[in-house]
């Protein structure tokens, strides 16, 4: 099996039915996507397939074949953080941070489709991601900041 992860071709010897999450984490050592529930309820494992957020814990690896897989590790380009990453830092939109990669990937999927979402659209799009620390108000704020270009330029 061959997968294209963060713009790089990566070989995998896993069973194609194996959930993508474990191929990424255990075979490719990309541990940014997290296990949280194994039933698509928490969103910690979210990655993008051709720009669409999916729950990698429920996605068989073969589904991702031939698609562009973007994980949290692929969001930073040439040492430059993605505006969402900048905005999450600036808004302090995390506590333990375990949900953060999944949050950012879900938000990236939203902004890909809806570049300027209002608060209700953000909440709806992020409904499948759990932050047990409860930083929801800051995550909403961070996504808004990124969508209007205010994530960057934090000292």
């Amino acid at each position, binding site marked *: 099996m061959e997968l294209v992860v963060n713009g790089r071709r990566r070989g995998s010897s896993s*069973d194609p039915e194996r959930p993508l999450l474990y191929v990424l984490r255990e075979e490719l050592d990309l541990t940014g996507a997290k296990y949280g529930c*194994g039933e698509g309820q928490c969103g910690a494992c979210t990655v993008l397939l051709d720009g669409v957020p999916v729950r990698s814990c429920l996605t068989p690896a073969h589904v991702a074949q031939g698609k562009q897989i973007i994980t949290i590790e692929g969001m930073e380009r040439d040492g430059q953080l993605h505006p969402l990453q900048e905005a999450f*830092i600036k808004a302090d939109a995390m506590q*333990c*941070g375990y949900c953060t990669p999944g949050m*950012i990937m879900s938000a990236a999927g939203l902004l890909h489709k809806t570049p300027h979402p209002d608060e209700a659209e953000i909440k709806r799009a992020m409904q499948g991601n759990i932050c047990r620390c409860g930083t929801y108000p*800051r995550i909403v704020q961070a996504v808004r900041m990124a969508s209007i270009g205010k994530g960057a330029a934090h000292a």
Partner: protein
Amino acid sequence: MPETFEVERYELFSGPAYRFTPDRREFLKLLGGGIVVLLALDGADAVAQESSGRRRGGRGGGEMPQNLGAWLHIRPDGGVTVFTGKVEVGQNARTSLTSVVAEELRMDRGRIEMVMGDTQLTPFDMGTFGSQTTPRMVPQIQKVAAVAREMLIDLAAQQWKAERSRLVVEHGSVRNQDSGQALSFAELSKGQELTRTITADTRVTPANDWKVLGHDQTKVNAREIVTGRHRYAHDVARPGLLYGRIIRPPVYEAKLQSVDSTAAEKLPGVTVVHDGEFLGVACADSSKLAQAVGAIKAQWSTPQSVANSRDLSGYLKAHTHGPVQLSSEVTEALKSADGKVESTYHIPYIAHTPLETRAAVAEWDGDHVTIWTGSQRPFGVRDEVAQAFGLNSANVRVMIPDTGSGYGGKHTAEAAIEAARLAKAAGKPVKVAWSREEEFTWAYFRPGGVIEVRSGARKDGTIVAWEFHNYNSGGSAIESPYNIPGQKCQFHATDSPLRQGSYRGLAATANHFARECHMDELAESVGMEPLAFRLKNAENPRLRKVMETAAESFGWGKTKSNPTLGFGISAGFEKGGYISCCVEVRIDRASKQIKVVRAVQAFECGAVLNPLQLKNQIEGAMMMGIGGALIEAVQFENGRILNPKLSRYHVPRFSDLPAIEVVLVDRKDVQAAGAGETPIVGIAPAIGNAVFRATGQRLRSLPMKLA
């Protein structure tokens, strides 16, 4: 301090074997020179930081101090490393402690490294819980950093033969204000082998002079988090790593009767361990684990369990330890009351549900084992592992990567012991990462409880009688902070049908729910407005201040409740923090939905160290509190958890997010208290009171559901 029923746990642990046996010079050589400042704990601090409360000898000569608190090393490269036994679980201790060093040493926080929760490197610490990092560890680190700064000034003064008072520390250097000369920390510490041991009475920068503390600071390692580079225990990789899984009993208390693992043992690369009640497998490819588990035939006993979540209160009352007697004084006092209320409140078991489940990697080297795990008690894990394997504590090293939250739920060493057992058999490092279902079933829960209150007040609002009995959910914050002479408040231990333990503000949440709901009921009985009734009985100026602040920001009393909109208020005090919460709830009569649409919380915990992250912590606690108030309950029956999945045990999501406003009351004249817990206690009773105003229904059971 630990919660009532947790104290017993800690007494099981003996004091640690102290590791820093070399004398100071050898110790410094190990570090490669520089300047070291060690804090020797005495009195209450030493007792608080050590599990045994036992003093372990004095300090003297060239030996290392025995009761070591936090310590700090200015490295020859000019950077600073601080060592503390506290851990980071999302409460942002790493950021606050780093900011403390940046403040005292007047240096950029990027040059400060915080080594936390590594049992081989950091001083012993009882654990990160009870909101103790801010009141206990912050002052320790302030002191070692302040002394380090003065030592650097001494070194510069000697070198320049300059007047000490003319030297200032800024941007990682000492500068002579007269000559303009500057020496960096690196230049000053290079070639030095200096140690100083200090005690608690060291002067630190007063809050009014703070340049870093008291100002907004974002998370110090946020970049690692947002890029996915930070490795939690789940993410730790080791050469040759195997993945392990434990075969669990089908119900609580079931015992292994027989095991046939012949088929599993024949699978290539699979290690099977059956040792007493322990049954687990490990292999290099985690996708083969299910097959290996499936190949093991295990027979279990089938114990009967009578307890269930539907009649939890009945169980707890029937299994109370010792007699409970009503107070005759309160009975007497009630005679002079114009309004009397008697009510019972019910608290379910709830689950911490940390998004990172329990996980550990264990790796043996001879009779030494190294553990990486997510935990709030690195030294507790070390001692549990040592006990499980009959080792000296010194043979166990535990390292805690910043952890995917705990909320009081990660005090124990289950995953560490399991990984170590499998790794010992396999001769390779093993990772055990619990599934969500395991976390929901085999961790421990916030205790359920029953609270009975009877009270009386006079027409003018004066409370004349107050009696409060808490069964099982804990004694913390059981006393009313209102001025009630002769109040009787008692905690009663009971048997627990489930394994129970610490939780973010566990007892205080239950006790505040009952008390603050009851305050409204009592106000109603004498026809008083809830805020006026509270203020009438509150003498403490800090308590009054948060109530007045929350009410003003909320616009309390400006709009009247109606059948679809309710307004509620609560107030309280716990672990050094004062809190008041006002909420607005919307009632959907048809669907019986209670939705919190707006919440304003005022909080005061002394001097604010970091307004940004304090607000974040308070908002998060309010969100988590909405879960306990309206959504969460562990359902159990016949020794099983009935809702051990996130699809069945719901926690707050974006759709539950109200408009939240946090108002901080900053008291620079009061030493900072912790804030990880207290902000959770106010929201449930405020919601309950708001629901009553809208609907006339008094909901006394958590989670609150409309009839």
